[in-house]
């Protein structure tokens, strides 16, 4: 079951300069009653995005017509808290292809990678430069080049390289799926089970 391949991305950004954004904010628990993976994008950041009556809150960045794009830029420790993969589904469902932050929570990072949503971890300095660039000009674009593990503020930098596990990089570039991989090595698993029976 292939996931979407991650190709080189050029996009404007949506800035969210809040730290420790937890997965309860990304998708509140009351929306976790669904039994499919679809439709979570509509409730992404629901309590920040809409007021009680369901009206969009003007002061929230997703409702600000100045900002749009496939890249979310967020403060440090993004995705902390609950392991809900619904957070990654909501971000991807909304149309984000990458999240840039100076620090990600572990489980969120894994969940994102398993859904073709690329977490790009940059230095604090780069993140600040990027926030400033977007604030100055909301039309600022970044290029995220997974093959070369490089993020660049267009048109002429700065740029920074980012880390990604080589296995996960290969999966994303080729659209490979972990379960297919593991099913292919089931003889190893069986051997381990026999040895430890």
């Amino acid at each position, binding site marked *: 079951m292939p996931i979407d391949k991650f190709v080189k991305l050029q996009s404007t950004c949506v800035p969210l300069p809040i730290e420790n954004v937890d997965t309860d904010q990304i998708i*509140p628990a009351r929306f976790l009653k669904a039994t499919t993976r679809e439709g979570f994008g509509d409730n992404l950041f629901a309590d920040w995005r809409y007021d009680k009556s369901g009206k969009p809150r003007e002061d929230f960045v997703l409702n600000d017509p100045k900002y749009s794009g496939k890249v979310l830029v967020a403060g440090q420790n993004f995705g902390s808290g609950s392991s809900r993969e619904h957070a990654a589904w909501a971000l991807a469902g909304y149309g984000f292809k990458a999240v840039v932050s100076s620090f990600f929570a572990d489980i969120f990072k894994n969940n994102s990678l398993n859904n073709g949503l690329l977490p790009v971890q940059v230095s604090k300095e780069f993140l600040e430069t990027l926030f400033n660039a977007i604030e100055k000009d909301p039309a600022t674009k970044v290029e995220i080049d997974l093959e070369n593990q490089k993020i660049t503020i267009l048109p002429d930098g700065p740029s920074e390289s980012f880390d990604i*596990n*080589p296995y996960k990089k290969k999966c994303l570039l080729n659209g490979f799926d972990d379960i297919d991989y593991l099913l292919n090595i089931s003889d190893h698993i069986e051997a381990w089970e026999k040895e430890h029976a």
Partner: protein
Amino acid sequence: MHSGAVYNAEENNLVTFKNDNTLAGKTLFEKIWDKHVVTKVDGGPGVLYIDRHFVHEVTSPQAFAGLRNRGIKVRRPEKTVATADHNIPTLGQDQPIRDELSRFQVNKLAENCREFGVSLFGLNHPWNGIVHVIGPELGITRPGMTIVCGDSHTSTHGAFGSIAFGIGTSEVEMVLATQTLLQNKPKTMRINIEGDLGKGVMSKDIVLYIISQIGTGGATGYFVEFAGSAIRSLSMEARMTICNMSIEMGARGGMIAPDETTFEYVKGREFAPKGTEWDKAVEEWRQLPSDPDAEFDKELTFDAADIEPMITYGTNPGMGIGISKRIPKMEEIEKSTQATFKKSMQYMDFQPGDSMIGKKVDYVFLGSCTNGRIEDLRAFASFVKGKKKAENVTVWIVPGSHQVEAQAEKEGIRQILEEAGFEMRQPGCSACLAMNDDKIPEGNYAVSTSNRNFEGRQGPGARTMLASPITAAAAAITGKITDPRDFL
């Protein structure tokens, strides 16, 4: 630092780094991990064999659907146990669930378990309860195991000296399909708590204190072993509370070396090994603790005497203080974190520099996988015994499982609670995440024994203050934030 930002331990001289001695002994974590590595992907993660997989209704339906799409079975259904806990009512459990989506999701779990041959302790089953409460109390959780669940508080099971951690739904599918998980080996950290705990200080206070010191990202990338004399002195249930909240410091998981306290707890439980199997198991478990010369990537030490009853004032679990202390002032917060701190203060409607003592409380919640076990109910009950609930406070007491509920009945805890004006509800995750009807109303203040004070966690607009069961009890009888030591 008070804001839950990433902690720079080096600045505080609390840290020692691993040297290059490759002949060093192994840590508890490494012993279990190494034994469970099936194979390693070139340049990538290890393939980790999973001994126990817990499943609940919220994070599993898409995983079972995935198996169906692929046309495959659960590889080892006997290693998987399911329960319904997140999305169930805590009143009227004998009736059909009223909320249509919740009912559908809980029914879906039963359907999936039937189709794929997985044991289910569903609603009204005598073994039903919060997944992280029933695993240990049934003896399904044991030392030396690898344990996963689609829930970040799976780290609870680490209290038994096991590698236990939360996973996402794609990973739930991975484990159902292959009984293995692709995992990068985390770094290791040991956090030592040395010395004697002060009066009125519970294990919840220890873990809230650690998180307040290192922040919600302070252990990200690490698997934490909790050690030291204060940890050794704790009961299993108190140890579970600490490991439960490892995720709130960002850790992949937390664990505590198994010892006589552990063996005593496991012995005789429903699924625990019996007879000679038991003796053999204990013999193996005794080999698990970290070798004396084992080295950790990072080590922190705290003095138990520095810990007082804790309370959180903000919107992440790192924003906690000793109950006698004041909320930090703006100038005490790192510049880059000030905007986030301000947002948090606005949400809580607190002022920087405020004292927490005396703040009004509308709700009290005793329960959750953090503090919903029998010892927590005992602590709460013995505190409120002979006193009366404050009139302005609504109190929800939710046992972690039917077994906890039955035990509370047997010990007369229900009666003590009722005499003091409280009622005990039926088991479930309840107001910890407010997926069911147990929602704190907008703008109301709740003292909660659960694990997260995030915005809206206990209901849209709810304001949560995390604390121990006795600090919650003190709030329940006074109607305001009160130092429980005033009554001890």
